[in-house]
């Protein structure tokens, strides 16, 4: 654990709306090595974005609130830092990319100005120096520097996402939080953006947390994967572990709902039911209402994560040996 770059322990985030409290994140723990990429995978509303925003402490503060846990970036706990100190960290050491490029940029400011703003916040550059640096960034993300003075509405969706990336990586952050960066883009642009992110990461050695619900994208870019469900990490391990040997029923359900090339089953098998109501989460394992293998034990108490193999944990009592890979294949072929 020597060069652990970021470690999150028992992170808890709640949103209050009226009298009801929404428990978005319920005790998430994971760690990230420098230069490594972690994927947070799960259905929408599982709390992935809340985790990222909690790390950066930019939760919209009237409803959202961090109520527990520790977030250590290179040993310093971000949750205890004052707002002034966080201002230094945001953009400098942690940066974020958002999902919908169409609304992620301020429509009334030129693209260049928005990049320069980030640059001049963290290093005292004159406007000219910052402008030059911003133009370099634009070139790197494949946008001709001369478009520095244009407004966001003059760019396509893909181009705008490139600007967002340029803005995020302008100050050469150590950690990049990418919140479903390619969901709003069509496939061809998606590939270009992913390659761009990968090349820039390798160039600057930036570690990244990628939030996505698209397993294809995860497979292509990430080192380790965390399956998030109802604010908890159900399964966590290297890409090889999770893709090859998914042991949590929810992970298996996710893989089953993917159309696979080789089997000719005509219907996809969706996971029955819907996400639990975050205001009153079921006791025990939150997935038990939808889990085909739920038993009585699953319904009570706290489900501790089980170490299935080194570096691969799974939060399920029945995660043990008996459900081997063949079984998952059988479910896969649809005999059950």
């Amino acid at each position, binding site marked *: 654990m020597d060069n652990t770059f970021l470690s999150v322990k028992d992170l808890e985030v709640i949103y209050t709306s009226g009298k009801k409290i929404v428990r978005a994140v319920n005790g998430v723990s994971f760690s990230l090595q420098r230069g490594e990429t972690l994927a947070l995978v799960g259905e929408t509303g599982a709390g992935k974005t809340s985790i990222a925003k909690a790390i950066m402490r930019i939760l919209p503060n009237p409803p959202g609130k961090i109520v527990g846990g520790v977030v250590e970036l290179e040993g310093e706990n971000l949750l205890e830092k004052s707002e002034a100190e966080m201002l230094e960290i945001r953009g400098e050491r942690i940066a974020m990319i958002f999902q*919908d490029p169409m609304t992620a940029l301020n429509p009334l400011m030129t693209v260049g100005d928005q990049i320069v703003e*980030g640059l001049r916040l963290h290093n005292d550059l004159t406007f000219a120096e910052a402008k030059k640096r911003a133009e370099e960034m634009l070139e790197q993300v494949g946008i001709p520097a001369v478009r520095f003075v244009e407004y966001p509405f003059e760019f396509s969706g893909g181009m705008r996402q490139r600007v967002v990336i340029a803005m995020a990586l302008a100050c050469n952050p150590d950690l990049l939080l990418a919140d479903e960066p390619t969901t709003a883009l069509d496939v061809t642009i998606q590939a270009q953006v992913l390659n761009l992110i990968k090349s820039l990461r390798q160039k600057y050695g930036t570690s990244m947390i990628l939030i996505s619900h698209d397993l294809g994208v995860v497979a292509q870019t990430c080192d380790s994967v965390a399956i998030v469900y109802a604010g908890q990490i159900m399964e966590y391990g290297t890409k090889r572990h999770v893709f090859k040997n998914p042991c949590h029923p929810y992970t298996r359900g996710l893989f089953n709902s993917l159309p696979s090339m080789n089997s000719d089953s005509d219907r996809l098998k969706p996971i029955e039911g819907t996400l639990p109501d975050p205001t009153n989460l079921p006791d025990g394992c939150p997935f038990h209402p939808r889990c085909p293998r739920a038993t009585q034990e699953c319904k009570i108490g706290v489900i501790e994560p089980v170490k299935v193999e080194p570096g691969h944990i799974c939060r399920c009592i029945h995660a043990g040996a008996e459900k081997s890979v063949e079984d998952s294949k059988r479910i896969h072929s649809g005999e059950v």
Partner: protein
Amino acid sequence: MAEYILKRCLALIIIVFATAFIIFTILYFTPGDPARALLGASASDAEVAAMNEALGVNRPYLVQLGDFFYDTFIRFDFGESWVYGRPVYEELAARLPRTVLIGLSAMVLNLFFGLLLGIFAGTHGSKWQDSLTMAIAMVFISCPDFWVALMMIVLFSLKLGWLPPYGIGGPEYYIMPIICASLGGIAVNARQTRSSILEVYREDYITTARSKGQRESVVVRRHMLPNALMPIITTIGTGFSRIVAGSAVIETVFSIPGVGTYMLSAINGRDYPAVRASVLFFAVFTCIVMLVVDLMYAFVDPRIKAQYSRVRRAKVQ
């Protein structure tokens, strides 16, 4: 930008012509005649008929319409007011500064306090500040302005004796009228600003700005306000016509001889030249304000400005 202004000025001329026609027709078909209004109840019917003849009110509709258009739009002679006995433009010019002073300063107050209250409420969304300001705004929208005016007069001029009850003179005469004229507008502006700020508050680019490590105050000033204030500019126009409508009442209560009271007495006295001229004045004045507001909108919103500059830039490249 130039041809946009040209197009609007052309529209302005058409609007003025149309307004003149509408007003003339409405007045022509309004019952009652100017002579009876001028000579009063004790004049005999014969004398009234003679006066109507002298004023040319009995001439056929088209002849009068032709005369009116010829005088107004060719000789720019608004004619002489029958009641006031002097050229209408002279009376209007004398009264114009007062109505404009009250109108524009009320608009400035509207904008300034409206935005201030709106921003204060918007940025403290759903906290007590928000509800309190909105409650105050609600109160001032609900009260009829002449009721508020009378209450203020009782309070400030009778009880406290700080301000003169009515009339014109030094600046102190204009304090209460301006406040009364702007109260309704402030409330409306505050509500609109608040809701538009709450809307922008939820936009993604605000979170982006924060993720760059930008201070909250700068986020509000540089990112939130410009976007929130865009829709507010258009409401300035409607705010203005609300003030102009209210001017007649405010001027009556504070007996300030403005264009509002002039129009009211002209309508009662069937003083056709005066009514036509003051209505045209209001129409042109409102259109100009609308044009200025649209230009401000175009100037501030890059999307529209770019359309014109791109045309220019395309030529350059």
